[in-house]
C-alpha cells in the first residue's frame, strides 16, 4: 500500500474551514469517553474533511488522548481512510470475483488510461478520483462501477466513455 511520508506532504491547517474544525471537534467530544472509538471517530471526521491528512490526525489524537502513531497506524491500515484528497466525482470500480470474471479489469484499465490515474489518486483539478473496491455485494449486476451515488451495472468497456460523459469535465459536483 502506497502512502507518502508525512513530512513531505502536509496539508495546510487552513485547508479546512473553521466550521469544519468545529464539527470535527464535536465528533471527538461525542466519542471521547467511549473505549475503542477511534474508528467511528475517523469515519465521521473523514465525512466532514473529505480526507485525513496529518493536521486532522493530530487533532483527533490530542482530542482522544491517543498517540499520533496509533491514529496514523489505524488510518493507514484501513482502506476506507485516505490521506489523499478525493475528487468531486469519485469513481469506484468493483473488482470482486463476479465482476472480475465479467471483465472488470478491462474497465479499470480503460479508466486509468482515460483519466491518467492510478487507483487511489485524484486528478490535478480534483474533479475525479479513481478507487478500486473489492466487492460491493451487488454481484448480480456485474461488472459494477459506482460514481458518487450512482451505481452503474453491467458496465461494458465499449460504453465507458459514454457513461462518463454524463459527469462532464467534473468541475460541477452536482452534474450526473
Amino acid at each position, binding site marked *: 500500500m502506497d502512502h507518502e511520508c508525512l513530512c513531505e506532504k502536509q496539508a495546510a491547517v487552513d485547508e479546512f474551514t473553521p466550521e469544519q474544525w468545529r464539527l470535527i471537534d464535536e465528533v471527538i467530544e461525542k466519542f471521547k469517553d467511549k473505549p475503542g472509538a477511534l474508528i467511528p471517530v475517523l469515519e465521521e471526521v473523514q465525512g466532514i474533511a473529505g480526507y485525513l491528512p496529518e493536521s486532522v490526525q493530530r487533532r483527533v489524537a490530542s482530542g482522544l488522548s491517543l498517540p499520533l502513531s496509533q491514529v496514523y497506524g489505524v488510518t493507514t491500515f484501513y*482502506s476506507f481512510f485516505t490521506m489523499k484528497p478525493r475528487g468531486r466525482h469519485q469513481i469506484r470500480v468493483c473488482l470482486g470475483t463476479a465482476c*472480475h470474471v465479467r471483465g472488470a479489469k478491462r474497465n479499470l484499465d480503460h479508466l486509468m488510461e482515460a483519466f491518467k490515474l492510478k487507483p487511489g489518486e485524484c486528478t490535478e483539478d480534483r474533479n475525479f478520483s479513481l478507487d478500486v473496491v473489492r466487492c460491493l455485494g451487488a454481484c448480480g449486476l456485474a461488472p459494477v462501477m459506482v460514481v458518487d451515488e450512482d451505481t452503474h451495472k453491467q458496465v461494458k468497456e465499449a460504453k465507458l466513455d459514454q457513461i462518463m460523459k454524463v459527469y462532464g469535465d467534473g468541475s460541477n459536483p452536482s452534474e450526473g
Partner: protein
Amino acid sequence: MTVNDLNSIQKRMEKEKGLGQNGINARVTVHMGTCGLASGAQKVMDALLDQMRKSGRSDISVTTSGCIGLCSQEPLVTVEVAGKEPVIYRQVDDPKMREIFKGHLLHGEVQSEDALCRGKAVNEDPMPSDSGNGIPHVSQLPFFALQQSWVLRNRGLIDPESIDDYVGRGGYQAAGKALLEMSAQEVISEVKVSGLRGRGGGGFPTGIKWEFCATSKGEVKYVLCNADEGDPGAFMDRSVMEADPHAVLEGMIIAAKAINSHQGYIYCRAEYPLAVKRLNLAIEQAREYGLLGKDILGSGFDFDIEVYQGAGAFVCGEETALMGSIEGRRGMPRPRPPFPAVSGLWKKPTVLNNVETYASIPQIILQGGEDYAKIGTESSKGTKVFALTGKVKNIGLVEVPMGTSLGQIIFDIGDGVPGGKKFKAVQLGGPSGGCIPAEHLNTPTDYEAITKAGAIMGSGGMIVMDDDTCMVDMARYFMDFCQDESCGKCSPCRIGTKRMLEILQRICKGEGKEGDIELLEDLAQTIKDSALCGLGQTAPNPILSTIRYFRHEYESHISDKHCSAAVCSALFKSPCQHTCPVGMDIPSYVALIRAGRIDDAYKILKRTNPFPSVCGRVCGHTCQMKCRRGQLDEPVAIMHLKRFITDHAKRPRGGVLPTTRKEKIAIVGAGPSGLTAALELRRRGYAVTVFEELHEAGGMLRWGIPAYRLPREQLDQEIQEILDTGVELRTHTRVGKDLPFEDLERDFDFIYLAAGAHKSLPLNIPGEDAEGVIGAVEFLRAYNLGKEVKVGKHVAVIGGGNSAIDTARTALRLGAKKVTIYYRRERKDMPAQEWEIRAAEEEGVRMMVLVAPVRIITQYGKATRLELTQMRLDQFDESGRKQPKPILGSEFTEKAETVISAISQKADLDFLSKRDGIEIAGSRVKVDKYFRTTHPEVWAGGDMVTGPAMVIDAIRAGQEAASAIDATIREAKGERPWVAPEEERIDIPVEVEEETVEQPQTSMLEVSPSLRRKDFREVELGYTLEMAMAEARRCMRCDANVENRSH
C-alpha cells in the same frame, strides 16, 4: 412488552396481511434490496405511487420488502389481488409499472408478457389447479422450487423497516421462549441437537462453541456478529441484513441467553450502507418494544446490541482481527489459544458467529433442533444460503438443503451458463477456497465432501466460470487480493503472498519459467503451515486448487506463452488471433476490408492458411467465440469476412517452387493436413509425394463436407494451388493395400501420416447389418464419389454432430421424404454448430432429442423401422453434462428404411501393423508435442491423431509437423534452421470507431430453404462489398491498444 403483546401484534398483522378485509383488496410489493435499487426499483416505486394518486383508490396497499433472490430479473414486483393468485413481475421499469397498475390492478388483467410466475417467492400456498394463462407457477420454476427457505423464510413477505411485519411472521417468539421457558443449558442443547455448524466458513459446531463460552468464567461476556462479509462475490449476509434484520437480532438474543451475556455487537462492513441503516433502525425499534435493553419481555434478562461499522479491511472478518478493530486498533489477528470463547473482546469470553448462523437460530428454537437435523446430510445439517454469480443465467441468492449437488445448483437452479459457453469450474469459498471443475459437478454441498474435492464451503459465494475464464489469471486475482488485504503481521503471509503473486504475475505476462509450478506448490505448503491466521493459511488454496485441476493451463502459459481463455492480454495481440490454431492475422485482414483493399487482405490470409476459401465456409471459428465485440452485442463475423475476401480478391497463382534438398518425404492422405504439410515442405525445398487412396485429393473436405457448404470449384482451386508448387500426387494408391508401408520406409527419408478418420463408429444394436444401414462418412463418401445412393422414404440419422447434420441435409436433397435426427442428449448439448442445426431445421429436417436407438427392425434383410427409447437426464458425467439414461418401458418405433450412424468416426489404422513401431492408443496414433510418432522417421497429424476435429486443427498439424521434420533434418546435419523468405510489407491501417453503437452481426444472405433443399447449390451466398465493409467496421481493433496495455 410481554409475550402476550407479541401475540396480539402477530394476530393483528396476520389479519392485516389478509386481503379482502379491513378495506384492503390488493397489495403491490416492490422488492427493494441494493441490487433492486441499483436496477431502478425506486423509479418503479415512484411510478406506482404516482399511479395510485391518479387512481384515487384507497383499497390498494403499497409496500416493499427486501430482495427475493433473483438478481438477474430485478426489479421485481409482486401483485396480489383478493381471491386471486399473486403474480410476480420481472424487469419492471416505470412504463411497465404503469401498465401493470392499469391492467392488472384496475382491470383485473394479468400482464402475461411481463410476468415471471404466479405465487410468491416463499411459497406457502399449495399449488392451485388452474393453468394460469400460461404463466408458470413458482413451484414450477426450478430456481424457486429446488430451494428450501429456513434462513430466508421471510423473503419477499415483510418490510424490513417494520418490526410489526416481523412480529406478524412469528418474530421474537423464539426469543420469548428461550428467555422465559428455557434454561441456558437447554438452549445450548437444542442448538447442539440441530447440528448447526458455523456458516461463516469455518463450519465449527455452533452449540459446542456456545457451550465453551457458557462454561468460561466471567461476569462480562459478549455476543458478536460477524457481518464483515468480505469475500468478493458473496452477498448472502447483506441480503439477510437488508431483508430481515430482526432475524439476526433475535438470534443474538438467544445466544446471549445461552452464554449469559448482556452486550452484543454487530460488526458490519462499511460497504453495506443499506444493511447498516436497516440494522440500526431495527435495533431502535426493538428497543422501543422492549425487546432489547433491560428486562426483555419481563424475563429479567438484559441485553443490548450496537452496530459497529468496518472500514474496509478484509482481514477484519477474522475473529481476533475483528475484535481488535472494535477495540480501536489495527485489525491484526493474534495467536490462539486463548480462544475467544475464553478470552475475546476486551479479553472477556466472547461468542462470534456469522449473520447466517444467527438467522438460523430462531426457527431452531421454535421448531426444535431435531427438525433442523432432518434436513441435510449426515455431517452437514440444515440449509445453506449461496450467492450464485458469475457466468450463470439465474444469478441470485439461493437457499438449499445441504447435500444438494453443485450441478443441481448451477444447472437446475441457475439454468446453466449463458451465451452458449461451456462450464469450466465453480469457485467456492472466495479467496480462501478452491475451484471445482466439471468432473465433480455431482459433489454434494457438504463440508467434508467439498473439502475432499479441494475447495471449502466457505461463506457461500459460488462463482461460476466458463471457458472465457483463465484459471491462472483467477489464481493471480485471488493472490492479489490476499496480498493486498494481508495485515502484514506475520512473515509467511506478508512476504509469502507477495512472492507467490510475483510468480503468478510473471506467468500471466508471458515470463513464466520451468519450475515455477513446483515453486508455487512449495511456497503454498509453507505458507499454509506457518501463517498466523486464516487469511494467510488459506490464501494459497486457490493456487493449489487450480494447479490440481488445471495444471495444463499453467504449463501452456509457461512453455507455449498461450492463454486458451484469451484473457492474459500480455500474451497476445488480439484474442481472435490467439485463439486461432494457426494464428491468422485477423485484425489485419479485417482492417484491410474496411479500407477496401481486398487483394492485400487475401495476401494476409495466404500467409498462414492455404485453405482460406474452405475455412471461410466451414471453419468452427473459435476466434468468434473470443471476439470482444461479442461482449457488447455479437461477435464480428470473421468467417464470413474471410470468405468474402476469397470470393472477390485477385488470387494470383504461384508456380513451381525449387527443390533444393535431397531428402524425400512421403505423405499418406491428401486431406487438408497432408496437403498443408506438402505445401510447407515444398516451401522448404523438399521433394514431396502424397499418396491418396481415392481418385481425387481433398480428404474429408471432398468426401465428407457436402457441396452445398463447400462448392467443388473452390476446393479444387485451393488444392491445385498446392499441387502447382510441385507436389507429386499419387491417387488410387492405398498404403497398406496397393503399396506396403515398408516400401514407404524404404523409398522415403521421412513420412507424415494424415489419413484422417473415415470409419463411422457402429451403433452396436441388433439389426445393424441389415440393408439400408450405413455409417455417415460412408454414406457421404458414396454420394460424393458419384455412386448411386438410395435413400428410403424415411431416413433416420443417429447423432448430433456436424456429420449428422451434413448427412441429414444430404439425404433430404437425395429425395428422402422425411429425415429425422435422433440425439440422446438435449439440443443444447449437440456438438454441431448452432447455425448448421438451424439451417437443417429450416430445410425440414426433424429433430428429436433425448432418444436413443435400441434396435433396427428388419424385413427380408432390409431395414423397415427403428426402435428407440426415451432418455432422462441423470447425474453429471465427466464432461460436465448430465448423463442420459433410458427410461424403462418408454420404447417406441418410427418408420426408417435408411438408418445412418453419425455418432463419431475413427481412423482406419489397419495399414499400420504393430511391427511398424508406431504406437497406437485406442484408434489414434500417439505423437509427442511435435507430432512425432514413436517411430523416429514418422510424424502424424490431423484426425488420425486427435479423432474428428476442425479443418483448421488439421492444417495446423500439417504446418507444425512439416516444420518439425525440417528442423530435425537440419539439426541432425548441423545446419542452421530454415529462414522463411521475406514477405512483402503490407501496411495495415488503424481506424477505430469514435463511438461504439450497438449493432448485431451483418446477416449472411442465404438461398431460401424451399429452393435449396432441391439440389446441392451453395446455400450461403456471401456478403456484398457494402455488407463486408459494414461488418469490418464493427471490429474494435483489440490489437491497436497493445502499446498502451498496462499489464
